[in-house]
């Protein structure tokens, strides 16, 4: 028996009274971009793909690691080391071969974000850091795209729909109406530092898919202009109403050109530490001068090993005991990504104040290595 029912796959939802064939048609025509295929992105993607969203984009430049599998349920041990975007897309395409799935194995920057988002109707934010989150928010405001937000910390989750109006005259709020300015990296712990119960992003990510399906099909009461919080330990939910702030629009880049020029990573670095940062060009210039000490604060087993210039190796964990030994007047710290070296710079500054010139290599040695590969000194 040949089935020619185009809705057979979706039969269980098509028979829902409010949903119907019309709801399914809307889903099949919808284009949803999921940014971050991690703890939130995986369950959101699974349900959106299963439900038959016609075009699903997924952007992630990360690779799968063993400690992801506790909560990033699209991946298996066979995917370790492979691209998340590519692995997730191939798994999802097996789940539903009838829809279009596009993997973007690239890091979102101010250069590519607007182009990418403009191809979709709705953006789902499954990112794990503030710099990308504020960038996505601002891009969605500029492009007038609804933005389904979720975030988790330890045992608690947050969920909201931003930048969405059911009717033209309704007010809409965005993430900056809730938190106008990014917190500094040292004010909020991420999952790497603070931990997260694996099932929690599963719950919040699934709710993000649910809210997305509701706004596409027009059923129910989506979480517009509200922040929903969920506590996995006691099952308590708390929902608060949000309202627009007068200053919000002034915090968002005015247009595409100013958006491209905005340095979101810089905005999210710790404000008190920022004064120590130097870019790669200044770092390379300083390397050529005398009377400097370059200190690698990474732990002994971290790679890449650096032999392009001379550096002392004092892991951050042992630095405090050794600070007084630092004799030179110009000190540059570096680490993998530029965060620990900022901490090191602050500690040294606490002892020596302005009597020494203290720097931290912005972006860390990984960025430096990348740059060197392009144009060696």
């Amino acid at each position, binding site marked *: 028996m040949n089935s020619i029912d185009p809705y057979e796959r979706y039969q269980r939802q098509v028979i829902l009274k409010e949903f119907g064939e019309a709801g399914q048609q809307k889903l099949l025509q919808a284009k949803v971009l999921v940014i971050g295929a991690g703890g939130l992105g995986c369950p959101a993607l699974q349900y959106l793909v299963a439900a038959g969203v016609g075009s699903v984009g997924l952007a992630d430049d990360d690779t799968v690691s063993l400690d992801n599998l506790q909560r990033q349920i699209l991946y298996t041990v066979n995917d370790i080391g492979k691209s998340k975007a590519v692995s997730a897309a191939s798994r999802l395409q097996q789940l539903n071969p009838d829809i279009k799935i596009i993997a973007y194995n690239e890091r979102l920057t101010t250069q590519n974000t607007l182009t990418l988002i403009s191809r979709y109707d709705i953006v789902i934010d499954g990112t794990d850091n503030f710099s990308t989150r504020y960038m996505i928010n601002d891009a969605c405001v500029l492009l007038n795209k609804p933005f389904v937000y979720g975030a988790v910390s330890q045992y608690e989750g947050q969920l909201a729909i931003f930048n969405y109006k059911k009717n033209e005259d309704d007010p809409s709020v965005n993430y900056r109406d809730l938190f106008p300015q990014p917190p500094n990296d040292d004010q*909020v712990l991420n999952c790497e530092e603070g931990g997260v119960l694996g099932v929690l992003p599963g719950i919040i990510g699934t709710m993000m898919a649910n809210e997305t399906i509701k706004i596409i099909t027009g059923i129910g009461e989506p979480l517009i202009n509200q922040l929903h919080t969920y506590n996995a330990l006691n099952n308590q939910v708390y929902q608060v109403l949000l309202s627009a702030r007068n200053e919000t629009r002034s915090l968002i880049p005015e247009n595409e050109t100013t958006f491209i020029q905005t340095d979101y990573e810089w905005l999210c670095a710790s404000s008190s530490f920022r004064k120590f940062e130097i870019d790669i060009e200044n770092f390379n210039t300083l390397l050529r001068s005398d009377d400097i000490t370059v200190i690698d604060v990474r732990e002994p087993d971290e790679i890449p090993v650096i032999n392009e210039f001379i550096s002392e190796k004092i892991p951050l964990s042992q630095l405090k005991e050794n600070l007084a030994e630092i004799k030179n007047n110009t000190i540059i710290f570096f680490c993998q990504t530029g965060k620990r070296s900022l901490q090191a710079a602050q500690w040294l500054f606490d002892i020596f104040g302005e009597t020494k010139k203290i720097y931290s290599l912005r972006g860390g040695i990984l960025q430096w290595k990348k740059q060197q590969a392009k144009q060696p000194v």
Partner: protein
Amino acid sequence: MQINVIIFGQLTEITGNTLLLNNIEDTDSLIRELNGLYPALASKKYVVAVDKQVINQNTILKGNSTVALLPPFSGG
């Protein structure tokens, strides 16, 4: 006049989950009071909701108001 304060996320490590405070006129004095009791709270980022409405300016508190402190979450 009693004010219930509910605390979310990692702020609970500083204050615990809930607090009851007496004789607090408005949200500015509430925050001053909390910063005095819990100095570590002063450097933290959060928004304040009064009776389930996020506020953007100092707000008068009525008896039995519930104030929530909601920090941003970064994880995904």
